[in-house]
């Protein structure tokens, strides 16, 4: 029995490519039975982080740990599943052949039929990979990633090219894997995907972890609220109020961005008795992400 505190760890990791620093003293952990989402703009270092965990690259400094072990050990990698963003499988092999081949790498693979049902690719089994649509190919790649019953799953942009229905069915499989104890690292451009799946979020910007924690922690880190209402008060005037960082008028509606909503709402109602259509919204992850990116830039 092998007890581990973290499914995978990057500890003070530095990775350079020539003069470019891809990862700069990055500390990041993937927790067991949780989805960790790694967000960041293109070129932030997300794929480099995955490459280090998979042993495809070596760090220039720091420690990389995979299931309590070094990444390159075969026995360790047999407990890991991976769906890579840039990999094209051979066009002239059938889906069934690809699955059987990949399953042979693992000690306890999922039965083929069970895997096909789980990932909804039953009808694709006899077809040539090259003849599938981009979305169908992504589904096959996902099936390959989970065919070995992994304890740790790396999903690099898993739902790119999938329609809404296919995306949601992939999410539901990921949730069921996590319920069974699988740890997942997810990189994605779809913020709603991170919101739908992730227990923890880390934002990587230019090789550094800009912020990390639970979704709620990141939300509270970005405490800003958006207030919308119909009011006769002038935007310029409100812009000078305490707690208000932005005030604009769009289509006859006031739009405010504030640090704390309550005192501003109280004052709005006090100064304009006819105020209507009041709406206060918490900053979603999308907004938080934009804010984090802007602040780190």
């Amino acid at each position, binding site marked *: 029995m092998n007890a581990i505190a973290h499914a995978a760890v990057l500890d003070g990791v530095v990775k350079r490519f020539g003069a470019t620093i891809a990862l700069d003293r990055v500390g990041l952990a993937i927790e*067991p039975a949780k989805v960790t989402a790694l967000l960041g703009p293109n070129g932030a270092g997300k794929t480099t982080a995955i490459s280090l965990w*998979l042993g495809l690259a070596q760090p220039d400094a720091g420690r990389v740990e995979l299931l309590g072990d070094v990444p390159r050990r075969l026995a360790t990698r047999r407990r890991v599943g*991976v769906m890579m963003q840039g990999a094209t499988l051979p066009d002239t*092999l059938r889906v069934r052949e690809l699955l059987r081949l990949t399953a*042979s790498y693992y000690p306890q693979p999922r039965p083929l039929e069970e895997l096909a049902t789980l990932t909804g690719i039953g009808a694709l089994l006899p077809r040539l990979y090259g003849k599938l649509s981009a979305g169908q190919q992504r589904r096959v790649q996902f099936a390959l990633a989970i065919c070995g019953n992994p304890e740790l799953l790396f999903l690099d942009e898993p739902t790119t090219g999938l329609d809404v229905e296919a995306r949601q069915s992939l999410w539901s499989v990921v949730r069921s894997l996590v319920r069974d104890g699988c740890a997942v690292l997810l990189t994605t451009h779809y913020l709603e995907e991170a919101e739908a799946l992730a227990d923890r979020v880390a934002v990587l910007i230019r090789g550094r972890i800009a912020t990390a924690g639970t979704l709620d922690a990141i939300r509270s880190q970005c405490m800003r609220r958006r207030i919308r209402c119909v009011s006769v008060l002038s935007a310029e005037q409100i812009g000078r109020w305490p707690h208000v960082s932005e005030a604009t008028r769009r289509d006859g509606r006031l739009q405010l961005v504030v640090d704390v909503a309550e005192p501003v709402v109280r004052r709005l109602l006090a100064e304009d008795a006819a105020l209507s259509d009041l709406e206060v919204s918490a900053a979603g992850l999308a907004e938080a992400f934009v804010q984090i990116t802007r602040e780190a830039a």
Partner: protein
Amino acid sequence: MYSEISSVPQVVTSRTANSARVSSLRILALEAHAECLRLLRAPAFSVPVIGFPFMFYVLFGIMLGPRHADPATMRGLVATFVVFGVMAPGLFGLGVTLALDRERGLLELKRALPMPAGIYLAAKVATAMIFSTIVSTLLLVTALTLGRVALELVQCSLLLLLALLGVVPFCALGLLVGTLTKGQAAAAVINLIYLPMSFLSGVFMPLSVLPHLVAQLAPLWPAYHLRELAMGIVGADAGAHLGSHVLSLTAMTTVFFAVARRRLQRKG
């Protein structure tokens, strides 16, 4: 140091994986099977690699071949075409597929997957051996039936063995090209090696009719040594320095593989 590790880490017990066994031999067999299917279903590969040596032999060895030639010359022709047929599966089978796999990220995915070290290349070499054996068998059956060439069972068996092992130096050379080029560029580069090598190493034309310098440089091509060994088997040529030819091929193979391996480790 960790910016996002919680102070009280959740401890779970990992599953008891690895209790079942993974067979490297089974992986190799499945991988080679998949590689064979992949290439057989790609007509741009399978048609020239299997079809051309057969077509050329029927055309130049049988239909337009020397009439009333002595049996030794006929056997020499078969041996020559076997060598020609052995070159392509190694050069194209490894070179082009490796270059494509590198370009398409498949090599990186295979490295990320828990495939035992060496299986990826071993499967490609095994596939080249299978193709090389298919090509040679086709040539020998054609020679024995259509060509009525007098070949003994031992000679046929040795030629097949030569085809099986003789493909390895070309695999190594193909591998090297595959690490130097990406995608379809590999096919162009390999053609630039394959066709000149067929002529300049004495496979298609006797060295005696080639310019002196070309004839002197012929031993630099692996095809030259393989042809000498094939000629030795059918007794049509001296086939004397058997040991030195085997040694030359082994040395070339070792160098090509070593350089390719170094490049693969560095560049991927």
